[in-house]
């Protein structure tokens, strides 16, 4: 038991026998089959592999397993069970903000991290909040608009 890493994943207590220097991204995808966590660059630039790590947005490709002992990790698979997700999903649907979809699980978690801190963000605050997540399809407008809709229609959720 001593050589296992313990953490909470989408609300469940789990362990991993991977070495401390492995990437959280690879463990989530390969061992836990959480393939909603996407790999875009493996260097912390694109945000496709974003997860919530103790409530903070993190690129899981840049997180070593050794650093997550006792932490709480939420991926899109866990987040998509929440009411907040539903509000964001409905808003994204209204603006057709999902194109290829590859950046979207990470982008949605970036929106959650933003709204959790700031339930009524301005355009500029939204653009800053999602600036670590690259999207090559939309030009970002539809996503910015969706965050505003979610903030308005999901009032009280954040």
């Amino acid at each position, binding site marked *: 038991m001593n050589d296992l890493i313990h953490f909470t994943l989408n609300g469940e207590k789990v362990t991993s026998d991977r070495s401390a220097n492995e990437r959280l991204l690879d463990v989530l*995808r390969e061992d836990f*089959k*959480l*393939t*909603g*966590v*996407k*790999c*875009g*660059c*493996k*260097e912390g*630039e*694109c945000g*496709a592999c974003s997860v919530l790590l103790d409530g903070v947005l993190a690129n899981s490709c840049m997180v070593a397993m050794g650093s997550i002992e006792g932490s709480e990790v939420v*991926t*899109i*698979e866990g987040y*998509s069970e929440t009411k907040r*997700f539903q509000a*964001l*999903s409905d808003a*994204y*649907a*209204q*603006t*057709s*903000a*999902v*194109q*290829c*979809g*590859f*950046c*979207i*699980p990470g982008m*949605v978690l970036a929106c959650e991290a933003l709204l959790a801190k700031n339930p009524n963000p301005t*355009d500029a605050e*939204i*653009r*800053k909040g*999602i*600036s*670590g*997540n*690259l*999207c*090559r*399809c*939309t*030009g*970002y*407008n*539809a*996503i*910015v608009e969706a965050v505003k809709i979610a903030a308005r229609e999901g009032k009280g959720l954040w």
Partner: protein
Amino acid sequence: MQSISKSIPKRDHFPKISGRAKYVDDLQIEGLLHGKILRSSVACAEINEILIPDLPNGYFVIDKNDVPGVNSVHVVDDDTPVFSDGTVNYVGEAILMVAGRDLKVVNQILKQIKVIYHEKQPVLDMMKSDTIFYQYGYTKGDWESAFRDADKIIEEDFQTGYQEHVYMEVQGMIGSYENGKAIIRGTMQCPYYVHTAVKRAMGFESDKVQVIQEEMGGAFGGKEDYPSILGCQVAVAAYKTGKPVKVILDRNEDITCSPKRHPAKMHYRAAIKNGEVTGIDADVVYDCGAFTTLSPVVLQRGLICATGVYDFKNLRVRGKAVKTNTVPNGAFRGFGGPQTFFSIEMFMDHLAKEIGLDSVRLKERMVVKQGDDSATSGKYHFHVPFPAMIEKLDQISGFRKKRETFRHQTGRYRSGIGISLVYHGCGFTGSGERDLIKGVVKVVKNTDDTVELLTAGTDMGQGLKTVFAKIASDTLGIPLEQVIVQNPDTDRVPNSGPTAASRSLMVVGKLLQRAAEKLKQDWKPGEYQEVVEKYVHPDFMIPWDLSKFQGDPYPDYSWSANAVEVKVDTLTATTEIVGAWGVYDVGTPIDMAIIIGQMQGGFLQGIGYGSMELLGVNEKGVIRNNSFSDYIIPTSMDVPNLVTEVVENTYDNGPFGGKGAGELPAVGGAPAFVEAMENALGVNLHHTPFSQEDAMKVLEALKK
């Protein structure tokens, strides 16, 4: 707004946003081997020897000797090898593959393999290439007299750089070989291109190759030709190993070896007489890289676009696509158009200054209208709504007033606003739709009265599944839920052609509409029914003759007018994009939110192409910045807001009046941005991308 334009939630919305959609790297397959490709580290060499260590049990090396059919990948021509034939022609060329259970072991083996090269001097400068892959030219009117009789002749050189697609999902394929059949699945725009290529490389009959498209994380043209190469490689690997083999490129590898937008150098001349542009002469060179891939057609489109949206009575256009020892270039949204459109738009801006006019005035004066001859002596058969589009652009951007205001600036911060007018020809270039593609669709009605649309069309995010379903649902008068659209599998779908060239909605969508109309007339509740519909070439078109480079290359065109406003800090050369506005004619939008999303995403790519997306190759032919840290694309903070509008100009030969849309917005961003920089800096500019460093050079030179 027509009722079909009203937006609906996209069909792929929920699977993608919830993380449930399976892209190729997400598939769980029993007994899978991981493949990794050993790539050339030098730009031009013969391979003397390859030293391979003893392989652990269950690990394989796959190379040219394992290709059961022909060691070449059919794209347009057949010069690309599946695996190196003993020479390497660019840094990144595939030499062999290592495959096995554990990717870490595969990578260790790859590191131990030594390739002994006999290096040769690579050709890296397209202007020094002595291998011309393709060459075309055409004239119109009496261009020689125009230049002979001119009051003044203006000559300028233009240059455009590489652009990397940066689809968020890298290239990836899984090949398997079961019961004499090669099965290929992965991220791809054109399943039947892959099918044709794999069939040839494997030496198999058509029914022994099956190609399945998985969910696709963006493409932008980058998954038009490359999947044929990777598809052949995984097919050969699966054939040799007897196991499914998956190859997913690393991002660095993807940027190193996958196709990009062709860099181009262009020389333009204009004849001016009595304050009018009376003749134009364009000489264009596109850098193909080491193999031909899609270059002939990219060059053709580039040359067709070379004189822009203007009615020049006398012109000559010549161009060639040449070989260099660099990564082969291919399709990228706009497909050869953005390079020449950049040049003609900048040239028009400069000619206007010579004549003493504002550039927009000159452009408005010369813009084509319905009934005019096109550059290639075809015709603009339909309404060209530029006057209304320019008016709308002024309403939303206020560019006319701003240009006056910005004319007299002093102080540290200088503003500029640039305007571009462009088109994208809808569908395959020339006679391709009629002679090469011959698209076929099938519509099947099941006994439960659900209707399935069978086409080879792929959804890479552009919304194809949603708009196809809308076309069928509206035509048949049945609920959307009754219409089924799945990712194509060549065992099930007919060849409706590639998902490229802004053709899917206009051409394939029209075939679906016709098939649905027939099914509606013959609808028998509770019975299984099939309708097959084949491409019919529009009879109004002036036949395209490639040998003369004359005729109608496209049935119709989509149009756009773009404005970009910048503010430059003349002390630091920092440029802020203050606003970006685009007005588009894509016929009837089949879904307004999808069209707006296409326009905005493409516009931002075009602005990136003009401003920041710089890819460099060093003196050894190595791409210097093959990572997201060093190849920079726009983030949400680089442009404050994209204001986009459509004008509705119904195209009768498209479904519900729709025509090509996907590529158009990527064409006009760069010239609008660079003209804005010209306005702000007070100089003429000639290249993309025009970066902060470039602005600093201009400002330093102005000080002297």
